[in-house]
């Protein structure tokens, strides 16, 4: 009797395991993992999909080529934009920051006008990420629009701006090690993931920064929001 009970239990366990496995396989087949497309600096990158603004791009419509990846520390950004007061630091939620600048050229390869949603781009480094910084973007670009219009066959160049705070990093990783880490510019996530591997940023001091554009809108920088 005991052996029969044991046998029935074993059969039930095996059946339950098979049902669970079949269900897990089914669920994963209906939501396939995104294909990962990784590009490098100076290599034209493309991506497709719908942006947060509802603009649909087909892969190949726009070619994005990144050239310079630089990092600016807190003193550097204060020197470049003297009126800039960072609200996160002012509120005491962080004590230090880094500004990352990525020069990107957008080429429209089609015969139609295309819009690119810049605010969907993210800068990541392992677990760390931050989104596009619209206010500092205004300071580093003449055109502050975060939806970039690109005419057929033409190219547009923008400096993309991202911010990192020391309160965003686990002490195990070390804030001072962040600037020596590898970074990626993530362009799209799903159904296909596209990113540009940027490597380490080049440290930049304010003296070598072209602040002609930055100076244009310094009055707007105070009381900025992130």
């Amino acid at each position, binding site marked *: 009797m005991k052996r029969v009970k044991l046998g029935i239990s074993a059969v039930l366990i095996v059946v339950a395991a098979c049902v669970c496995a079949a269900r897990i396989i089914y*669920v994963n087949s209906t*939501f396939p993992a995104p294909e990962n497309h990784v590009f490098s600096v100076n290599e034209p990158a493309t991506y497709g999909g719908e942006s947060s603004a509802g603009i649909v791009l087909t892969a190949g419509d726009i070619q994005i080529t990144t050239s310079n990846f630089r990092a600016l520390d807190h003193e550097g950004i204060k020197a470049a934009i003297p009126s800039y007061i960072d609200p996160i630091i002012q509120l005491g939620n962080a004590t230090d920051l880094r500004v990352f600048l990525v020069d990107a050229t957008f080429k429209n390869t089609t015969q139609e006008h295309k819009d690119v949603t810049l605010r969907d781009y993210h800068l990541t480094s392992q677990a760390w990420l931050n989104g596009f910084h619209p206010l500092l973007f205004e300071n580093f670009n003449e055109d502050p629009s975060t939806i970039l219009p690109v005419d057929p066959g033409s190219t547009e160049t923008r400096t993309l701006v991202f911010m990192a705070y020391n309160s965003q990093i686990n002490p195990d990783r070390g804030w001072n090690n962040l600037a020596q880490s590898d970074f990626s510019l993530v362009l799209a996530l799903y159904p296909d993931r596209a990113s540009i591997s940027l490597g380490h940023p080049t440290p930049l001091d304010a003296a070598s920064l072209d602040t002609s554009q930055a100076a244009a809108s310094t009055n707007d920088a105070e009381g900025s929001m992130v």
Partner: protein
Amino acid sequence: MIVAEIKRALSSTSFLIALGVGLLFALAHILTVAVPYAFDPDWSLVQAGSKGVYPNSLLNSWIGATPYALSTSLFFFALPLLVCLPHAGTLYTDLKSGFISSVITRCSIKDYLVAKAVAVFLSGGIIGIAPLLFNFLGTAMLLPALTPEPAAGIFNVPPTALLADLFYAQPWAYLLFFLVFDFILCGIIACSCFVFSFLVSNKFVVVVAPFLVCVITYFALGDASGYSPINLLNPSQSHIAQLIPTLASYVIIACAITLFVVWKYRRFEVV
């Protein structure tokens, strides 16, 4: 002795009650979080990559990844109490009832203590991770196991969390670490009742004391509250903790519990 003590721990009614309560939390989480994610009609848009949104998946929807869910908060707050319910108070009752005196006529006090510690540790560990495994399996049957993506902004392991970089690079290694860590931590919490068995003279207080210590450390430690068991048991910790201080502090606590019990029982043996 060890086998008998483990059988006593795992077949007790209080063990089944504690396990049942833990599994109820896990089931409630599946019904309130994973089921809506899986069967919401908006999912058809998300699956098509609408507005570039990354779909909800197993690793952002199971009980160890949803700190915003009520069932998650209740489960991880109740866990230090649940792990102590089944067997952790039996040292106190053995001591008070005089049962221990009859036991040490048949085996050494060392054998008795080792058997008791193993049984309490195992019962605590099982109650800690069985609901997690049940919830993980249940959620896996509803949602896909997509790779965690930091840029998606939907994974509740922030860059400030313990081993956050490992989560995005090797999510299965991260999960395995936390399951093993939770098992050990629940075992340590359950074994901490041994200390209170000598310090207080009420079984209810002996069983509840570790839970109170966990709650007090969570709310009273300020910046160090990341090292509270309530924060560390949850894989998506809401407070910052570092790996080496975490491991070192719990090794020290485990050693302190062992030394305290050994010291007390050496005196008991002499008497």
